[in-house]
């Protein structure tokens, strides 16, 4: 336990940095990059918090994690209490501590960011969650008596998991149905091991199993079982749809069918979910990246994950091709930073116009065009426009397209009365998460479009509250 220093002293402590694997070494393995804080560093960092009367950090967090309070427990050395405090608002702290875009959320709002550098809230959150996990003393909350009500959760990403966790505590009988053979959504098929070890997700899923949540893999709702059957034949009193935004977008460029051109979803699914990085054991192949040129089109988290995976698969040159400048990149700041340290080459203000191949149908190159930034567009970002006559060909063996995803229509197209907007996302009330079909709620990326883990979890919690109300009152 450490005493609080006077504010002046606190402000002299620099932001503590996260120990990480050496960049050259980690670029060759799939082990986690960030190694985690030890208690001495965590305590020093915790000292920096000014315990604000009006904690801006909590307002910046989409689920309102009580940062000031949990950081206080860290300072007292009460790590389990700190974890329990976070869990009041956030059921997956070991995940969010690692993957939240903190600079736009809690840390972006922290008062320290104005004059100094913000408190390392994400790193501290991760620290206490990992501590809790290591002790095996995860403070699982008490479950309410059984209500006899059945709820089906469609999709096992962060939205589905957080909703399931809350509802099971209220005493409902909850079954999570997942199309793939593993539970976790993007956390297991998209985000790579070196950023979010799969064991962490497995551990959280185990906790939920202990709390009484049932999991069924290999169930594609809309195909294996329809919404009508769930509600009318299988006796589910409510359904929460959390199917994510998993439809890959292609660029519709010539040559996109060539061997070696992937969607980010396929590339990452092969590498992560199907474990293609473990070429000794996995039966799922990935097109050879060793000693070859790989380019990833896009500038988001998905693009960073893909390009850093390619490096680890042995790429000679791994490029990011992004049509705007680094300032506009939607990826987490830490990921861009890590990617650079590892040797990823950034071709900002470039855009592909054609993929080139040989007679056997394999990719051999890409024609790129230089871009420049014009006036801001609807999104407020400066619009990239092509520079006339700037095209050139770059030799390329593997291309990964990471320009975003859309709504998978499987559930919507097979569920009468479930309305969608013009992009195919499910329409749900912002507060109640109710859809246009009685007894059906929706949230996460399938409602908001591709967003973040914590926003999906927030939506899951809101839905759980609303579903509980519906099950208690019976009123739609």
């Amino acid at each position, binding site marked *: 336990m450490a005493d609080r220093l006077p504010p002046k002293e606190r402000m002299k402590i620099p932001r503590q940095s996260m120990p990480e694997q050496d960049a050259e070494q980690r670029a060759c393995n799939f082990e986690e990059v960030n190694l985690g804080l030890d208690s001495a560093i965590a305590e020093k960092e915790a000292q920096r918090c000014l315990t604000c009367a009006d904690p801006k950090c909590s307002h910046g967090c989409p689920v309102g994690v009580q940062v000031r309070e949990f950081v206080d427990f860290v300072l007292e050395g009460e790590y389990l209490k700190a974890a329990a405090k976070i869990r009041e608002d956030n059921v997956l702290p070991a995940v969010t501590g690692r993957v939240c875009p903190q600079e736009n959320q809690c840390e972006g709002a922290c008062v320290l960011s104005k004059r100094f550098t913000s408190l390392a809230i994400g790193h501290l959150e991760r620290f206490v969650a990992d501590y809790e996990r290591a002790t095996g003393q995860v403070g699982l909350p008490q479950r309410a008596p059984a209500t006899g009500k059945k709820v089906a959760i469609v999709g096992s990403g962060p939205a589905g998991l957080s909703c399931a966790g809350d509802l099971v505590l209220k005493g409902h009988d909850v079954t999570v149905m997942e199309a793939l*053979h593993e539970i976790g959504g993007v956390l297991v098929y998209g985000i790579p091991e070196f950023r979010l070890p799969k064991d962490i997700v497995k551990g959280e899923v185990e906790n939920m199993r202990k709390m009484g949540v049932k999991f069924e893999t290999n169930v594609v709702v809309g195909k294996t079982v329809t919404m009508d059957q769930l509600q009318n034949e299988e006796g589910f009193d409510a359904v929460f749809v959390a199917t994510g935004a998993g439809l*890959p977008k292609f660029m519709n460029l010539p040559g996109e*069918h060539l061997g070696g051109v992937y969607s980010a979803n396929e590339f990452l699914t092969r590498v992560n979910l199907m474990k293609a990085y473990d070429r000794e*054991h996995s*039966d*799922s192949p990935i097109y050879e990246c060793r000693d070859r040129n790989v380019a990833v089109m896009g500038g988001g988290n998905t693009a960073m994950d893909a390009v850093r995976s390619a490096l680890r698969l042995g790429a000679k040159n791994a490029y990011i091709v992004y049509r705007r400048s680094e300032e506009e990149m939607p990826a987490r700041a830490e990921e861009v930073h890590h990617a650079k340290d590892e040797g990823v080459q950034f071709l900002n203000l470039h855009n592909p116009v054609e993929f080139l191949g040989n007679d056997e149908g*394999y990719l051999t190159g890409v024609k790129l065009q230089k871009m420049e930034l014009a006036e801001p567009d609807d999104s407020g970002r400066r619009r990239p426009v092509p520079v006339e006559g700037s095209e050139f060909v770059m030799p390329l063996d593997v291309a990964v397209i990471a320009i975003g995803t859309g709504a*998978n229509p499987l559930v919507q197209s097979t569920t009468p009365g479930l309305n969608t907007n013009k992009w195919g996302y499910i329409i749900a009330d912002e507060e109640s998460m109710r859809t246009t079909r009685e007894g059906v709620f929706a949230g996460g990326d399938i409602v908001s479009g591709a967003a973040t883990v914590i926003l999906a979890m927030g939506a899951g919690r809101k839905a759980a509250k609303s579903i509980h109300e519906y099950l208690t009152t019976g009123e739609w």
Partner: protein
Amino acid sequence: MFPITEAKFLAPDVKRICIEAPRVARQRQAGQFVIVRVEAEHGERVPLTIADSDPDAGTITIIVQGVGKTTKLINMLEAGDALADVVGPLGEPSEIEHFGTVVVVGGGVGTAIAYPTAVAMKAADNHVIGIVGARNKELLILEDEMRATTDELHLMTDDGSYGEQGFVTQKLQQLIDNGVTIDHVLAIGPIPMMKAIADVTKPHGIKTIVSLNPIMVDGTGMCGGCRVQVGGTSKFACVDGPEFDAHEVDFTILAQRNRMYRPHEQQAVADLEADPETQV
């Protein structure tokens, strides 16, 4: 786990397997498929057509040709064993209507994929002509089943060891030349065979459907690995297909994409044959 209730070789390397999968059995329609994994830790996801299903017993039947590591592993399984994962039914069902005279062409294990649709075509009151081809007598499968569901059945072997000597395309051409009115053709088999059938029917304007077998991962429209060029646009075979208008399909691209992992696949089979024990 999905227990196997029955397993029997129909021909060398071709096995018929019944699996307990009640939800799939209840929903399944002709033309749909499942994706299976043999082994939970490192297994690959492979698509296989549902050849038959029994909703009351809660079982489905698949017919598997051992062409690579995963299908060979599946074919080592016996009744009492289990598959780690079975998901489905995936894909759009076959378009079944009363067309009139329907020719169902099956080449090799493609016959297993065509068989359920032949049954459905017959049930929809079509006059069904079957043409089943194989390299030789040993490899010809489902003769009795096809005979029972077709009004007319032609058996073709490349070497003439059974039925008539020749290719399935020659038989189809012969029927057309003999003036048989054909309203609809369904052709399933190796890519060159499907392409050749498309070339036979195109000049006559006979509607021809093929079932494509691109490499798949999830089977739910999430990866785009199964994309095929149909009528100049990109389609996902797992959700938009697997059946498409043969006259619109770019078979060259399909064949090229299916070769993408050849070195890896050959290595996997070599390892498996060197030491099958360590591979399961």
